[in-house]
Every structure is written in C-alpha cells, then in structure tokens.
C-alpha cells in the first residue's frame, strides 16, 4: 500500500506529460508570421493580399516526377469539384525550391497543366530560404552516383499547408492523404 502511495504521483506525472506530448504532436502548428512576398506567375505575390481567402501552399519543383504531381492532382480534383463561389475563396500557390531549373515561364506552363487558376512562384535563394524557414520546410538536392554529372532530384518536405483567412496555418495535409480527406479539411475552413 505504501508503495502504491509512493508511485501514484510519479505515474500521474508520466500520464500528464505523455498526454501533453500527444496533444502537441496532434495539434496544427500556428505560425505567428508566415507572411511572404515572392515573384510569381501573376507578378509579385503577397500572402497578405489574400486575407479572407484560404491559401493552399505547397513547396516542390517542376521536375518532381511523382510526389508533387500526386499532391497537385489531388488539389486539382478537390478544386474542380468546388462551386464557382467556393473557388473564389481559395488560392493555390506552388513554390519551387529548384531555382536553377525553374523559372516563371516554365512554371507557368507546369502549373497551368493542373489548373489555370493556380499560381506558381520562384525567387532568389535568399527569399526561398526565408520562406521555407518560416514554414519549417526542408529541401535538399540529391545527386545519384550512377547518373550523368549534374543530374539531380530534390528531396523536399511534402506537406500541403492550409492557411486560413487570417493568414495563419490551420492544418497540414500530409503527402498520401486521400482526396476525400483533403476536400473535407479545405471545406471546413471555407
């Protein structure tokens, strides 16, 4: 009995700490300053100008053969199913982290393939690094040994950021999430 009395507070603390960790792991990060300005296919894009809209923000690159097209295809499907009124409340922004190969001209062709309303952006390394830092996005070039010199792919964070009408990140959609769940999460914010 004495033993149980002794360990009860310890067990309580362990349960409490575990609970706090669990809740934090499952909470959406709320950025205090996620604002950015970037050169885009529609001129300089300023996140602040989209207050009142839901912004779907994704970081990737044009040569991305599978991960980016998969997410962009899901976003395209969700977007095309929305009403005209709903579409007006949504902005889709694709930021390239491959500044060497991507430019606004080829990004325009790339993003229009998914939907004409989507915008793509690329900028100086300093600005890209500043924006990715704000969003906790990581990217890194990968040079396979067995390929021609200079050939690379880009490893990158693949979460889709859902930014609310107040400009703050409300939730993340992980790579591999179904179209249905993506749609539900977006509609919740509209």
């Amino acid at each position, binding site marked *: 009995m004495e033993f149980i009395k002794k360990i009860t507070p310890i067990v309580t603390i362990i349960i409490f700490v575990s609970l706090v960790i669990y809740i934090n792991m499952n909470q959406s990060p709320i950025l205090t300053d996620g604002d950015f300005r970037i050169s885009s296919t529609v001129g300089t894009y300023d996140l602040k100008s989209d207050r009142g809209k839901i912004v779907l923000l994704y970081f990737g690159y044009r*040569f991305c053969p*599978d991960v980016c097209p998969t997410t962009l*295809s899901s976003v395209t*499907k969700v977007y095309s199913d929305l009403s005209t009124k709903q579409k007006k409340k949504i902005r889709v922004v694709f930021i390239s982290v491959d500044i060497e190969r991507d430019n606004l001209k080829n990004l325009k062709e*790339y993003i229009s393939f998914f939907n004409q309303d989507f915008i793509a952006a690329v900028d100086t390394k300093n600005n890209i690094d500043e924006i990715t830092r704000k969003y906790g996005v990581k990217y890194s070039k990968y040079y396979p040994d067995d390929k021609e010199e200079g050939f690379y792919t880009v*490893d990158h*964070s693949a979460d889709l950021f859902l930014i609310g009408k107040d400009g703050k990140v409300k939730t993340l959609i992980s790579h591999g999430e179904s179209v249905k769940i993506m749609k539900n999460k977006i509609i919740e914010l509209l």
Partner: protein
Amino acid sequence: MKKILLFLIFVNGNIFGGSLKIENERVRMLPPSSVATGAFMKISNSSDKEIKLIKAKSSKAKMTELHNHFKIDGMMKMRQVPFIKIPAKGYVLLKPGSFHIMLIDLNGSLKLREKVKIDLTFDNGETITIEPEVKKIRGHQMKKKMRH
C-alpha cells in the same frame, strides 16, 4: 513423348509463364516540359514462390528504373531500389507515392493516350512487355478497408 513434352510446356507455362499478371497499368501524363514520369500497375503472382521484378526498360526514356519513396528527416526522398517483391499468392501495387517505375529523361513529350512500351524482367527469368497508356492520374484515393 509428344504428350510428355506438351505436359512439360504446360507445367512450365504455369510456373514461369502464367504466374504473373499485370493489371491497371498506366503512365502518368505530365506537362510537356517534364523530364520524368511514373508508370503504375498491379502485379499479381499466382505461384507459391515470391518473385522479384528486377528490371524495367523502355525506349521512351533514356533511363527506366524501379523506385520507391521514403520519408526521412521530414522530407520525401525518391530512391532507386534493386527490386520489387511480388509475394507468393499475392500482389504488389505500383502506385503514386509508393513503388513505381520511373521513366527518366523522356524521349519527347508525353501525349495523352499514347502507349508506352515497357519490358519488365523478373528474377524467375520471365520478361513481360506491357504497353500502358498515358493517362491523367489523380492523387490518392480513399484507402479501402482490407478484409483479413
């Protein structure tokens, strides 16, 4: 003798020729300037031995490789893999975000509904030629509940 020979061909056909089935094969349509794309499919193995897909080759691309995705350090990393296992009496799905065949450095832009010839070589000595169509491929579908 003829009967024995025919029997052997039949048996061999079942083990090495008819044990693999490819379904729902397709190549992802991407914008014209894309240099690489993925081929996806379901490969079923009706034999009681595991079979490995060890090579893919296509004249549509300078390099045709077997790939998978790995999430490491918060990043999605696409890497070449030496083989893709098809379990005995089972199947493997080559799908977006998972195992797939990567066509790198494409010879010309992809056209919708174009057929892309791909030779698949397996470790049982079998080679299967498929001609998947280029299609617009949607993102991930809702996961279906698996019955055990």
